[in-house]
Structures are given as structure tokens and as C-alpha cells.
């Protein structure tokens, strides 16, 4: 199984552990991820709220570069990049007028020939849940996980074609192959405030407090995420949430790839589990998941 790989800017800096664990897990499963040469930032929210053509042209540039890998599908880990790439492909495939403008801006001919998939879809659908289960050598029985999807993986379904918009279950299914138990909770698709982390930190703290509280009330011991922005807000800002709202959250926020890696017996250092602000190490040792 061979895919072009789009890490995105966060996976090369603030969420390096997502990149590390995604690659470790994929290698173990025989999934080849070939980095798209000279990939470009997707433009994220600042592009789509400022200039429409630019917000489509930047992702298309990376999709064109991905063709050089020889793979017909690009694997993406970041939910925000995933959203921008899927939306660009959608416009190219469904709106000839927009497609012409995008191609003129990029200075190349692109017809939507590179499919975009999130790593969760690749694991659950292409690799298969049963096959995945067979690779779990160090079962995480007894671990209670709240799977947090956030916004951009699932919305809007018309374009993302990912999972149910209100109650997605794909990450729960993937995480449960490890033997862990996922909790039923109402915060799955709530918003963390994402790009307002820097500009409107107060809003982000309020939203993260709610998400942490909902997960905690549902009996979760940790939160699983598939987006670097969700992870940063819930992890990096957790001490501030505690201070502002007089809370004592000590909730590890792990990438689903780190949870899979642990259940495959991959060394925790290779999964970047020492890179979190709310350290999961003591908790994982207490659960006998790591030594």
C-alpha cells in the first residue's frame, strides 16, 4: 500500500509527535508514506477568509506535486489540511468555473486526479479493522478513551464524505482495535476554537474547558484526537484552563496514532509521548501500558 504523504506545517513543528507516531504505525503495517515533494502550506483558515482563489490554489499546488510520488492518493493527518485539500478537490471536480480560475492561479492543469484520504480512513477502510486488530500485540484492555473528532474531519459531509456529522464512529472503531474502550459522550464534534488559540485565547479556554469536562464526566481517562489544532488547544492550554476555571484536569490528550503505536508495542519515545505538556507518562505507567 503506497500513498503520497502530506504532513502539513504543524506536523513539522508543534505536533511533531503526530508525524512520528503516524510514520511508526504506518511502517509497522506496511503502509508506505512518501512525502509529497515541496508540499506547500494549505493556507488554513487565514486563506479561505481572505482570498477564495488563493485558498483553493495552495492545496492544489501540493496535490500537483504529490503526483510525482506515483501514488494516486494522498494521506493526510491534520484535520485542517485534510479539509482544505478535500474542499479544493471538490471544487476542481464539481465547478468548472472555479477549476479554471484555480488552474490559472497555480499555472498548471489539474483535474482532481489525486484523491485525498485521512489516515483514519486508510486504516479503517483500506487496511481494514480486522487486519488492524491482528497487529495489536500489547492490548490496552481497561483504557477508557474519549474520541474527539472536532469540526473539520466531519463537516460538511457533502464534501468530506468522512463519517456521520453528529455522531462519527470511525475513530472509536480504530481505537477499539487496541482493546481500549471508547466512551459515549456529547463532545465528539464540538469546536475547540482552533485558529483562535493565538487571537482569542479566552474563547478557546472556555471551549476547551467544556470539552475536557464532558470527556471527564463520561469517565474517560484520556482523549484521543486526529487533529494537531485540537491537540494543541486541549493539551497546551490545559494548565491555563485549570487556572482560569479553578479546575484540576490532568487529562492526557493523545493522537490516535500514539494509542495504536502503544498497542503495537512500539517504544513510547518513538511515538513522541514525552512531547506533551500534560504528560501521559505517569498515567500510562500506572496502567502498566509502558514501563
Amino acid at each position: 500500500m503506497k500513498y503520497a504523504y502530506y504532513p502539513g506545517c504543524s506536523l513539522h513543528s508543534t505536533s511533531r509527535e503526530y508525524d512520528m507516531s503516524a510514520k511508526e504505525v504506518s511502517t509497522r503495517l506496511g503502509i508506505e508514506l512518501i512525502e509529497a515533494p515541496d508540499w506547500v502550506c494549505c493556507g488554513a483558515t487565514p486563506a479561505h477568509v481572505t482570498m477564495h482563489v488563493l485558498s483553493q490554489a495552495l492545496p492544489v499546488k501540493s496535490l500537483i506535486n504529490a503526483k510525482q510520488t506515483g501514488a494516486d492518493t494522498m494521506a493526510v493527518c491534520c484535520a485542517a489540511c485534510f479539509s482544505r485539500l478535500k474542499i479544493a478537490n471538490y471544487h476542481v471536480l464539481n465547478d468548472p468555473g472555479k477549476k479554471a480560475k484555480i488552474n490559472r492561479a497555480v499555472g498548471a492543469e489539474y483535474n482532481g486526479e489525486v484523491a485525498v484520504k485521512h489516515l483514519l480512513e486508510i486504516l479503517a477502510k483500506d487496511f481494514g479493522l480486522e487486519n488492524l486488530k491482528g497487529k495489536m500485540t500489547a492490548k490496552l484492555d481497561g483504557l477508557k478513551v474519549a474520541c474527539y473528532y472536532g469540526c473539520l474531519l466531519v463537516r460538511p459531509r457533502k464534501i468530506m464524505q468522512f463519517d456521520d456529522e453528529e455522531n462519527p464512529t470511525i475513530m472509536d472503531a480504530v481505537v477499539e482495535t487496541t482493546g481500549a474502550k471508547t466512551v459515549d459522550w456529547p463532545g465528539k464534534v464540538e469546536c475547540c476554537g482552533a485558529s483562535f488559540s493565538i487571537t482569542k485565547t479566552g474563547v478557546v479556554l472556555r471551549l476547551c474547558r467544556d470539552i475536557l469536562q464532558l470527556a471527564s464526566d463520561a469517565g474517560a481517562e484520556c482523549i484521543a484526537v486526529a487533529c494537531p489544532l485540537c491537540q494543541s488547544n486541549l493539551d497546551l492550554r490545559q494548565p491555563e484552563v485549570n487556572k482560569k476555571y479553578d479546575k484540576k484536569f490532568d487529562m492526557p490528550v493523545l493522537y490516535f496514532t500514539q494509542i495504536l503505536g502503544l498497542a503495537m508495542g512500539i517504544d513510547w519515545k518513538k511515538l513522541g509521548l514525552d512531547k506533551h505538556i500534560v504528560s501521559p507518562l505517569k498515567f500510562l505507567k500506572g496502567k502498566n501500558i509502558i514501563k
Partner: protein
Amino acid sequence: MKYLLNVKNLNSEFVREIQAESKTRILHCYQCGKCSAGCPIANEMEYKPNQIIRMIQLGMEESVLKANTMWLCASCITCTVRCPREIDIAEIMDVLRRYAFKRGIFPAAVADIPVFNRIFLRNIKLFGRLYELGLIGFFNLLTGNPFKDVLLGPKMFFKGKINLIPERIKNASEIKDIFKRSAEIEHSD
């Protein structure tokens, strides 16, 4: 000034322009309020999303553009997916921001958000990828909070999560050209 919903003001140039640009049927809104009920930031907004839609219907251009609503939209798209009338409210918020950007209208109370967006995009134009340290540093300087989040920096650095030097792509000049051509296409529209 009193506003009444009638055929005359439902046909303002403003509503026609926003409707055409967003390719969504603003006049179909029947004010159920689901968009505002699900909006995570409605609490901080001057007008809730459903009120903004009604104001667009009424052609209240100035009030819409002066409000903080569109700038506080987090683009979570909850409103759009829950709208029983299939109105793409999130896209309308994007169109409003782009409309304001073209005209240089930024309400002072939320001016830091477009400033952030501009620094972010300049970053991409220069390097092809986001240079987070530069983004946050510049933003804090320009908005007069040089020490905001300063304690998080060392924590991130020692965990290897901050690049001191920007990552550059090989053909960054191609990206500059994409910016240039995109701007030309936007302006010719």
C-alpha cells in the same frame, strides 16, 4: 430606522451580491435559529448568525460589516450542516470577510484577527510553509502584547516543538507567483 421585510428591501444589491458570491439561498432563511443554537461562539457575538442572515436579507450592509460576528466565526461549519433550509451560513461568513477585506473594513474591536490572517499569509508567501515562531512573535508585537504566551515558548522549545529557523520550500518563488495571480483573478471578478 425601521426595517420591514418586503419585496423591495429583499432585493437589495447587498443581498444579491452576497447570495451570488456564496452560491447559497439567503432568502430561504425562515429564522429557526438552529445556526445560533449550535454556534460555539454565539455568546461573544454582537449579532447571532441567524440575526446576521436576517440583516443581510434586509440589505443592512453597514451594520453587518461593522459587527464582530463574521470575525469571531471559528469556521467550525456546525451552522451549515444543521440548517434545515440548506443555507451555507459558514460560507456566508467567509464571503462577508472577503467582502470586507476587499474594501479594507475592519471593526477596531476585532482588528487583531485580520492582522493575524495577514501575517499568516505573508509567512506562506515568503517560505511556502508556516513559520510559527515568526507568526506569533510578529502578531504579539503588532497587537501590543509582546509577552503574551511567552512562558509557553521555552516549554515548547525544550520538547522540540518549535522551529527557530523557518522551513522553506525549494521553489518559494512559485508560491509568490500563485499569490500574485490569485490576487489578479480576485480583483478582476
